[in-house]
């Protein structure tokens, strides 16, 4: 927990320092994005307004304490909008997209991973392995185009852009989860193959438990350990991966906000985005840690066994 806080503090400091190391003057950028020709007085005025005339560490502590209270400042591009408002407006879209993808990811990768481990070297396993191979080599945005072409243009089934109804999320979430699905199928397959060698599996079989019980109750539960840790990182990777997906499918989410901020050099938004991603990362790891002790009681009472 303490380590997580230190990591977060470090991330915030690096993000803040790097933004301040950029040769471009933020005050000038702030003026330019609003189509104002930067004169000396105007730059000076905006410097004071943005608090840029104060020393570096003072600005950092100001920024950090404000950020912790949810005040990320105002966007350079649109002075009427607070960065927090922008984040709050776009976050639900991204969360929905990532959430659906996560459910898809789990729903597809567990059965496929288990099947391909149980039927190792069978044609089923070969199909799954081919699928894994193809999906690791395929660029994500290309897959998005193929899906749009097939489902939106050819069959006219699903919408290709926007986020006004649930059907709008179908193609984006499939594309998003395809980027990471190979990793999880492979992880589950390998850890299933590992645990299959363990003694308790032979014991369970010797006790006369059905193959179904052995695989789905005993083997899977023990194999999920490694995959769970990966899933903790996976949630954040899904949210970070939305940058590409949201720009293709025109979903007004966090990824698109970050992308347009990068193009506009809108530093308050970029800083806030990095900080939010860091927080999400620490948070999801924490949740996974807790979930792991629920699934595997050995982790909780490790001391007693030793």
């Amino acid at each position, binding site marked *: 927990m303490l380590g997580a806080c230190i990591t977060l503090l470090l991330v915030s400091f690096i993000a803040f320092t790097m933004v301040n190391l950029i040769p471009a003057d933020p005050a000038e950028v702030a003026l330019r994005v609003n189509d104002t020709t930067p004169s000396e007085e105007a730059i000076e005025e905006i410097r004071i307004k943005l608090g840029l005339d104060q020393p570096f560490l003072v600005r950092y502590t100001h920024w950090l304490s404000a950020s912790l209270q949810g005040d990320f400042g105002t966007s350079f591009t649109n002075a009427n909008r607070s960065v927090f408002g922008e984040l709050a407006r776009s976050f639900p879209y991204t969360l929905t997209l990532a959430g659906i993808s996560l459910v898809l990811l789990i729903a597809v990768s567990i059965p496929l991973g288990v099947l391909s481990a149980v039927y190792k070297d069978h044609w089923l396993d070969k199909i*799954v392995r081919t699928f894994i191979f193809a999906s*690791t080599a395929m660029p994500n945005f290309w897959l998005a*185009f193929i899906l749009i072409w097939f489902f939106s243009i050819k069959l006219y089934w699903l919408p290709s852009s926007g986020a006004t109804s649930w059907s709008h999320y179908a193609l984006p979430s499939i594309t998003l989860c395809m980027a990471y699905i190979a990793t999880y199928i492979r992880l589950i397959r390998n850890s299933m193959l590992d645990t299959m060698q363990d003694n308790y599996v032979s014991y369970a079989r010797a006790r006369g438990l059905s193959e179904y019980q052995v695989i789905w109750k005993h083997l899977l539960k023990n194999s999920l350990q490694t995959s769970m840790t990966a899933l903790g990182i996976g949630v954040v990777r899904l949210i*970070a991966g939305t940058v*590409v997906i949201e720009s*293709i499918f025109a979903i007004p989410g966090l990824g698109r906000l970050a992308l347009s901020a990068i193009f506009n050099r809108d530093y308050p938004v970029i800083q806030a985005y990095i900080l939010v991603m860091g927080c999400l990362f620490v948070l999801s790891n924490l949740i996974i840690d807790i979930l792991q002790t629920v699934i595997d009681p050995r982790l909780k009472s490790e001391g007693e066994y030793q």
Partner: protein
Amino acid sequence: MTQRLLNNKTALICLILLSIICLMGAFAPFLAPHDPNLADVINTLLPMSGEYPLGTDYLGRCIYSRLLFGVRTTLYYSLITMVITAAVGALIGIISGYLRGKVDALIMRACEVMLSFPYEIIVLSIVGILGPGIGNIILANFIAKIAWYVRIVRGSVISFNHKNYMLYSKTVKSPQRFIFAKHLAPNITAEVIILATLDLGWIILSISTLSFLGLGVQPPTAEWGAMLNDAKEVLFSNPEQMIVPGLAIMVVVACCNLLGDALRDVLDPRTEHKQC
């Protein structure tokens, strides 16, 4: 070692294919029938023909010529990134493994923090702060990946330092340079090559994705990801435009992945091959 690699059919085919693609990129000015950036408003979106082997895009540029020149950006930049990352990472790893002590602890601590964050976030944050551009993309990928090399090289330096033949070599006072060149370097090189080849596919995808978003190679320079972005403009009227660049990326990445897997089998027979 080379013999074993040549006996592996998949590796051989991938290696030949990648070499041919690299050479085609190098000789692009001689092979390309047209100027890759020359727009021709009359001949837009043409199908395949004798003059335009793969047709033209929405600005009337020859897709085949752009594909050839795209090798120079997509593949060459990825190769440069890979070589720099592997070389610097290995160097820091060796230093860290040799010196141990406080320097080592500090480097390892930094690596841990870097490894704990997903690559996507590191790359995006750095590009976000430094702004778009191919130099920044290479730097971002470098930072995202370097910790891997440092940790693995450091690990093998330390483990090899305690091997009996190393201890013997030290006891009989072999010169430091001899020990390094004869015992340490071959082992480390093998590991770094495996890791780097497996990474190459990932770097290609990363660079072309960022270029697709407009954060990497800037138009009108031909790049496979940027070509797909051009194809996006006419996705509804001419969906066939997306086939060629997408396929190119997929073939190259697949080759790199297969080659990396094969190299691991050949160079590192100790580890049992379990990945698919």
